[in-house]
């Protein structure tokens, strides 16, 4: 490996960053940096020739289309946008004016708490409401004397509340004395959940969401990968991307690279039980290894290089703390680097398992609060880099404690600014074995590990959001290496070129270039109906979630294809053509500004009419599918009703040999009740045969509150239970609640991804619970049973006890699973009673979303349905 004979001059100082200054819009322009003598050998003849560090000539790549074009049809099912600013922030005119001078956001805490009370009145005030309902009067007329002593007229209170609403923002609220009096009186006992605790939890969650909204580093690295075909000259490739409503399906989609790339055939699909945050890929020995990271699970797939060969899942690991990084070794097959937010770095080998390289919850060079960690490979297969927000260190996996050196420090060494932090490090091995890329929110650096701490290249990238994604396209000798940088929230895409590293020093080549963002196509689309426009705006404006690119060489021209993934699961592509090989095309578009609706994409003749046609056609088709998809859920959003015909087939109701005596009796009951329109609570269960009753679940140790209450209600001695409960000490209630909250937090997102792998390993390195990882075969017999463990309110089995797997019918009857299916509360009991009677012939479950076609592609062992996508249909509200 050659090292440049001379490097560009630079100062070297140690210590904290000295330069002040925030993000500056023009910081990247106009500088040459330094100069160096270009070719020292030829100095004898004439004057020395100098080359600049920045601003040398680069290659010219021109966009072929006016906007990015969708590659794949929009994913079926409605996309649930993540919370936006206006969902969280407090927006009040009065407040805004008052705070105009001050910066800082106010979280709308009251609104979120209000959401909770409105959406979950049962959970919030259920038992008290029922106990007290005699004491509340809802009518308008005046109360009579004997009742007046123990009854409150609610209409008056409601009026006061309305008045308060009208005066929102007014500081003189003491006028509503009745409300104050009421709230003062019942603040302590009206709520099922202690209000202080609830508020604490909610506030914590709001802060979490808010910080995610400002900068979500869980997406670092991006969830899109391009696997080029193994055969040289092939025009095929494979896109690996997440999809589905919860972004928990992994797709391997074959793509044909023609004028515009398009998918071919049905993608191989894997359902995982967590949102996919990152997809990383590397090619070793002609095979691609694809690493997939979700919060608590990391998995690795092997994809043979031949086109059309099926991807094979290899292994999965589970972590207790969310993983923040997963990178695949470009040197050795089946080796990956994993980091968790607890500050642990592992070398993960499919053959030998996990090896912990470092565990340090503190950051390396100075104190920073962020738990984000990253690791990547270097030129030496046994040396890994570890990064946190303060810098990068390289350590030898054979002696990680002893052998390490600092590669990059946020400080004077690299000429950093104050407040600068590492955002994404990336090994540039395909361009040069010892080069490294580091991006911060201000600048992008190229490092050479043979000369640590001194960046061989630095350039302020001027992007509005920190670049979370990067992609390298190495150039042949004599050509430039291309680096793409991508930001998430702003969808920015920037193309940089650089050269050098071995014979000559590194130089930035040409001016950086902005590529189309996904939202950019909005102005080129024909005018839409307002609600369609709004939907489109929301969909196209979704934050970017990944970036991939490939260079395609043809006889006459060279094209660059850039793929961009959005959080909605859409994959867009744009084509750039290389100037040198391109036939002269009209580039007069350069100066034209485009008005909405009148765009070169749709009207102006472009360089190739075929390309224009396909792009427009692609858009039309995409829009059609998108709008068709968005119409469906509006029908679906009606409260789901169960018709008798759906529940029971005619045959079930009549029976081939005529109903038995019991059945006839039940039918009679049923008819009678339906005729009366009465409550099913009047059903007398005792009249039925004992076996028809679902068994009372045995109270096993510490059941949670909800279960005990339900149990009590089920057996009829609910009032007694309430008596017991009121004597429950408040402290105990709080403890129980805290426990529940903690469990929920832990349970969130940690569902068994392992179920979708043929071989699954569990490492106990970070106290992985062994209890809830049943072998995948367990579910094979009942593929449609919704297991209880996924639903948020379910209690996890006690550690040590055998996994409590309820019988299918019981699971079907549990109130959680019924709620999951959208069955309204008042009908759940009806249904439960029906089902318990007809236990011998369980009815077909309501149809589950997910088309037949996609299921065919899932290998049989992977067809287990997780409940993740079921429970998340509702738009998430803060904290609940």
């Amino acid at each position, binding site marked *: 490996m050659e090292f440049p004979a001379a490097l560009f001059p630079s100062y070297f100082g140690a210590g904290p960053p000295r330069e002040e200054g925030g993000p500056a*819009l023009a910081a990247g322009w106009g500088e040459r940096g330094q100069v160096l003598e270009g070719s020292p050998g030829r100095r004898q003849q004439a004057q020395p020739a100098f080359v600049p560090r920045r601003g040398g000539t680069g290659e010219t790549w021109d966009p072929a289309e006016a906007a990015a074009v969708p590659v794949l049809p929009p994913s079926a099912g409605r996309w649930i946008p993540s919370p936006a600013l206006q969902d969280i922030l407090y927006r009040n005119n009065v407040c805004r004016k008052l705070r105009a001078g001050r910066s800082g956001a106010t979280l709308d805490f009251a609104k979120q708490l209000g959401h909770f009370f409105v959406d979950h009145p049962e959970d919030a005030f259920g038992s008290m409401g029922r106990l007290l309902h005699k004491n509340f009067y809802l009518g308008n007329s005046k109360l009579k004397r004997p009742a007046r002593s123990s009854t409150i007229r609610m209409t008056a209170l409601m009026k006061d509340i309305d008045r308060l609403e009208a005066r929102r923002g007014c500081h003189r609220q003491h006028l509503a004395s009745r409300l104050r009096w009421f709230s003062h009186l019942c603040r302590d006992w009206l709520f099922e959940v202690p209000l202080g605790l609830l508020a604490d939890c909610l506030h914590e969650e709001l802060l979490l969401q808010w910080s995610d909204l400002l900068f979500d580093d869980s997406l670092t690295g991006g969830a899109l990968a391009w696997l080029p075909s193994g055969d040289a000259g092939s025009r095929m490739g494979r896109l690996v991307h997440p999809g589905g409503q919860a972004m928990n399906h992994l797709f391997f989609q074959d793509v044909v690279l023609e004028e515009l790339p398009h998918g071919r055939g049905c993608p191989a699909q894997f359902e995982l039980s967590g949102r996919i945050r990152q997809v990383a890929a590397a090619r070793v020995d002609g095979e691609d290894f694809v690493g997939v990271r979700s919060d608590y699970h990391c998995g690795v797939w092997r994809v043979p290089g031949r086109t059309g060969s099926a991807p094979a899942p290899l292994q999965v690991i589970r972590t207790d703390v969310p993983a923040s990084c997963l990178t695949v070794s470009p040197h050795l097959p089946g080796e990956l680097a994993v980091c968790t937010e607890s500050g642990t770095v592992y070398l993960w080998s499919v053959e030998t398992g996990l090896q912990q390289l470092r565990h340090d919850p503190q950051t390396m060079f100075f104190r920073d609060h962020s738990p984000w960690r990253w690791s990547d490979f270097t030129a030496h297969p046994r040396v890994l880099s570890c990064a946190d927000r303060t810098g990068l260190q390289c350590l030898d996996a054979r002696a990680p404690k002893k052998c390490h050196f600092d590669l990059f420090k946020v400080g004077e060494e690299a000429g950093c600014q104050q407040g600068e932090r590492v955002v994404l490090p990336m090994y540039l091995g395909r361009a040069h074995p010892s080069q490294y890329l580091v991006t911060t929110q201000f600048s992008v650096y190229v490092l050479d590990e043979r000369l*640590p701490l001194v960046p061989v290249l630095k350039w302020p990238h001027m992007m509005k959001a920190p670049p979370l994604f990067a992609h390298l396209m190495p150039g042949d000798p004599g050509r430039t290496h291309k680096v793409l940088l991508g930001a998430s929230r702003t969808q920015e895409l920037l193309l940089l070129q650089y050269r050098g590293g071995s014979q000559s020093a590194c130089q930035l080549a040409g001016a950086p270039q902005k590529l189309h963002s996904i939202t950019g196509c909005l102005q080129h689309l024909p005018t839409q109906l307002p609600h369609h426009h709004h939907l489109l705006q929301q969909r196209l404006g979704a934050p970017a979630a990944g970036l991939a690119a490939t260079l395609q060489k043809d006889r006459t021209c060279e094209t660059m294809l850039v793929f961009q993934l959005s959080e909605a699961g859409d994959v867009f592509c744009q084509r750039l053509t290389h100037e040198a090989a391109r036939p002269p095309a009209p580039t007069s578009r350069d100066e034209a500004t485009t008005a909405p609706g009148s765009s070169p994409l749709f009207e102006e003749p472009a360089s190739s009419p075929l390309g224009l046609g396909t792009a427009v056609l692609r858009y039309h088709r995409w829009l059609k599918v998108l709008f068709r998809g968005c119409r469906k859920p509006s029908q679906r959003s009606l409260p789901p009703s169960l018709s008798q015909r759906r529940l029971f087939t005619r045959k079930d109701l009549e029976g081939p040999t005529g109903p038995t005596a019991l059945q006839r009796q039940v039918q009679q009951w049923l008819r009678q009740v339906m005729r009366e329109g009465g409550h099913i609570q009047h059903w007398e269960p005792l009249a039925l045969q004992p076996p028809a009753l679902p068994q009372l679940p045995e109270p096993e140790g510490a059941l949670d509150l909800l279960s005990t209450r339900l149990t009590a209600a089920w057996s009829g001695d609910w009032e007694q239970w309430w008596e017991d409960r009121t004597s429950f000490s408040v402290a105990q209630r709080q403890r129980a609640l805290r426990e529940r909250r903690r469990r929920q937090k832990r349970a969130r997102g940690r569902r068994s991804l392992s179920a979708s792998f043929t071989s699954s390993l569990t490492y106990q390195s970070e106290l992985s619970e062994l209890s809830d990882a049943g072998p995948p075969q367990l579910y094979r017999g009942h593929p449609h049973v919704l297991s209880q463990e996924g639903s948020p309110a379910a209690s996890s089995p006690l550690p040590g006890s055998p996994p409590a797997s309820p019988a299918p019918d019981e699971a079907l009857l549990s109130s959680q699973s019924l709620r999951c299916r959208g069955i309204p509360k008042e009908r759940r009991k009806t249904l439960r009673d029906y089902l318990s009677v007809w236990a011998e012939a369980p009815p077909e479950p309501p149809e589950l979303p997910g088309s037949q076609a996609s299921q065919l592609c899932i290998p049989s062992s992977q067809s287990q349905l997780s409940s993740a996508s079921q429970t998340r249909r509702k738009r998430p509200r803060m904290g609940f």
Partner: protein
Amino acid sequence: SSHEHRLNFKKSKEACLSYIQDAMLQKQWKRAAEFLTCYVESLEKDYSREPIGPSEMIWRIGTEILCHHSHSSMKEFNCFMEQMKTLGVKRYLKVCLEHVFHLLCNGQIDEAYQNLSLAESWRYGEQTAIQDKEMKLIQAYRGLLDYYSWSKQKNILLEHGLDGFADLSVEQEMHSCFRKAAVNLKEIIKIPGVWDLFVKCYVDLLEFYGDHNEACQVLNEYAYNSKFPANPNAHVYLYQFLKRQGESKKSLISALKILHDIVPSHELMIDFNTMLQKSKKRKKRRLGLEVIFAALDYAGWKENVKAWSCLARQVKQIVISKKHLDWIKQEWNSRKDWWPAFHFSRYLAKRNWQENKSLSYEKALVAGILLGKDCKYFKYVSHQGCKAQVKRFRMLKKFVNRHNPVYLRISG
């Protein structure tokens, strides 16, 4: 009100800037230039206290546009730069330096020199730390240009010297260039930094005038001062100097040993290995084996025939002599769990055989000895070699088969 006015002005300024930015990032230089003419207005009411004020923006953006705009000329560029220099006192030196860089890249060495001299004489109140650094750089670059004119005159003199005709004035001018260059170059290389270019020139000057001690001291300081970054070139320059001076093997080896310690993957490691292999001392030959093994650990050396033949030669030597097999064993111990997959996979055997037969020969020899005759790499290559009836592959197979017990000793 004035506050509102300021706010609006700021807003429109920002909008204008974002238009410019957008145009530049899409390489629409003409459009950007048009917007820039509007932005110049912001200079009139420069209320900002931001680190990069409008005048710096205009300098940066204007320079960039002039570099890429199809209708710009060098004259316009110089004119623009002169205006920019007067716009801000704080940035004067920086703008000068960038202007000089631009001139140098366009081959206008004399104009650059004039600009440097002018900038050097600039004085304005107390200098900040950054300005101090910039001034040092300006002086250094002037020293560099002095060095170039020195070397030009030296060449003239050497040519004419051969004719037996020496021009006194040329010689005098050359010496004055030397003095000017030496003073400035000496100054900058004292400060911690990467000064490859300046160090090389300074050492060249010193060597020409026979001041080898000073040259040696400068190079040692550049390589070993702990305040300087660990620059491999510093060690390379020292090694090359020592070689030119005809220093002993021992001092050359010790210079390369340090380079090996900081950059085991440096290209000079081949030279180092051959030097060590020739040595009569056991310790040195042992180090040679270590060096070549360490170099081949790196991905960049994977397909380096020279390195593999070095390793193959030394391993073969050891196997034939049957002495020091433990050296191989020790080196192999820390690599046996990953070298087979990294270097000796079946996939690589196929590819190496197709692309580079001599590489696959050397690697097969090493694989055969380290992993035995049943190793995939060796089996594939020797099979293909025998099939193609190449003599040396048949010899290779024989050699490995004969020495198979060695493998057992190494792996055992």
